[in-house]
């Protein structure tokens, strides 16, 4: 790890003033479960680390009639132990519960989950976000891509977004609160992530001197919701594919649906075709399977990850059935 200076501001205004103009110059520390590893591997070598944990306003989980507010510093334990989350937002609760390591749940934060960097082993080994060798040749398409993207990799980014919360937040139409030198702004969770065009870019819609402050989830308002993860291991690993679903039922039929997949693309993947396939129909084994088929219709698996297409279909189908059930 390269040496850095450490500063622990107590307000978000101070924090933002201490950040840098360029990515990687200054890094933000919350739970530390990802940042410390990235620094140990020299994937990022900041000259300064700004610890956010001294900023009380970024903490807490609060549920009210207007919805749910997750502070950026709320830990996964904080979210998991909140009975209102479990009752009203099972899609969020299940995504958090899927992180089985008690240590990660005690340390890891909501903001950190959204801003953690990809797990792609080429990226983690120093080949950059777009994983190219010194001649500019992309390593993933004919390399070991068993855990890489099956959708949305036209841009040349083959990693998958690692966030546990993001698909659930997109399905629930949440907004991400951001603070920067120009003040506060909100971004739709569905618009927060991006496929980077170069190694100096990030996978989310923040400027280098902005921080995530909170996540705002609308009141459930009768939206039934669920998350289903397909995992190789139950512990200490990321899912191979996941899906989060929010449904508004009108009588027996689906009036509105929002469906997002995790771990299949460089961004959490909104499955509009699956939503359209479901609206106006009753949720049955058959309609859920048809929606799952639609969700993966455009999948372009790489040389070693075609198996993920079926896993993702299963995740979509089971999440739909769980939400409706």
């Amino acid at each position, binding site marked *: 790890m390269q040496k850095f200076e450490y500063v622990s501001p107590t307000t978000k205004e101070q924090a933002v003033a201490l950040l840098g103009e360029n990515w990687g110059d200054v890094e933000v520390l919350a739970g530390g479960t990802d940042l410390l590893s990235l620094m140990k591997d020299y994937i990022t*070598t900041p000259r300064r680390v700004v610890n956010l944990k001294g900023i009380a306003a970024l903490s807490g989980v609060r549920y009210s009639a207007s919805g749910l507010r997750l502070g950026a510093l709320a830990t996964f334990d904080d979210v998991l132990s909140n009975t209102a989350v479990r009752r009203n937002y099972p899609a969020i609760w299940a995504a958090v519960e899927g992180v089985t390591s008690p240590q990660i749940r005690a340390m890891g934060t909501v903001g950190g989950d959204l801003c953690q960097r990809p797990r792609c082993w080429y990226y983690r080994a120093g080949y950059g976000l777009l994983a190219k060798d010194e001649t500019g040749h992309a390593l993933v398409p004919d390399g070991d891509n068993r855990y890489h993207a099956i959708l949305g990799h036209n841009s040349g980014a083959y990693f998958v977004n690692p966030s546990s919360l993001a698909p659930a937040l997109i399905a629930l139409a949440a907004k991400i609160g951001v603070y920067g030198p120009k003040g506060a702004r909100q971004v739709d969770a569905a618009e927060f992530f991006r496929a980077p065009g170069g190694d100096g870019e990030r996978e989310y819609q923040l400027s280098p001197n902005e921080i995530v402050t909170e996540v705002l989830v609308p009141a459930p308002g009768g939206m039934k919701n669920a998350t289903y993860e397909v995992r190789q291991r139950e512990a200490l690993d990321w899912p191979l594919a996941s899906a989060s679903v929010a449904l508004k039922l009108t009588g027996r039929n689906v009036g509105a649906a929002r469906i997002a997949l995790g771990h299949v693309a460089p961004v959490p993947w909104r499955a509009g075709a699956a939503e359209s396939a479901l609206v106006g129909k009753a949720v049955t084994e058959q309609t859920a399977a048809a929606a799952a088929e639609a969700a993966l219709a455009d999948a372009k698996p790489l040389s070693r990850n075609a198996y993920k297409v079926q896993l993702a279909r299963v995740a979509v189908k089971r999440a739909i059935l769980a939400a409706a059930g």
Partner: protein
Amino acid sequence: MSSSGDMPDKPNSGVSRRNFLRGTGLVLSVPLVAGGVNVVTVEGAAVQVYGPDKVQVSLNINGQARSAEVEPRTTLLDTLRNDLDLTGAKRVCDRGTCGACTVLIDDKPVYACSVLAIDAQGRRITTVESLSSNGNLHPVQQAFVDNDAQQCGFCTPGFVMACKAFLDRNPNPTAADIERGLGGNLCRCGTYVGVRAAVAQAAKARPQRGGRRNG
């Protein structure tokens, strides 16, 4: 951001001259207070900037006030092991994925390899060294012995701390609770059956409070 050619087996040197100069430039005209701490004025308030060289870190470990001189980049794990002679927590993966370094902070299990020592100040740190007293093993430790819950033993201190934290929160666990509750620790020898049996034994050995079953 390191360049894309930087491989882990060929890391940058600890400090490059360019980064050092850039770093010092940004805290220019700031008085040096003491021991690697500078004070900068940010948004009208005085904010202390620590490092990048060694600073004094005060830690509450096993009920004792301890201090060490470490760089801000130093992890709690390395501080415990290298500066405070507390070598129970083990350095194995050093990436928050194995659990061998588990200690408790404010009674919750954490990976000490993924916490900066400077960031652990003001918190209550509990390490495996605190468990036995006067030569008597803690019930969790005794249960590990009784159930052969270790083979090479390198993961054991971390497992013991994770088990203690788990039982403190789940005094009457089911078998499924135990399996899931220990999901943050790995044993490469594969002695999970023994660990689960040890947790079940330690749960029974605890003074029962009200007989409430969890789950």
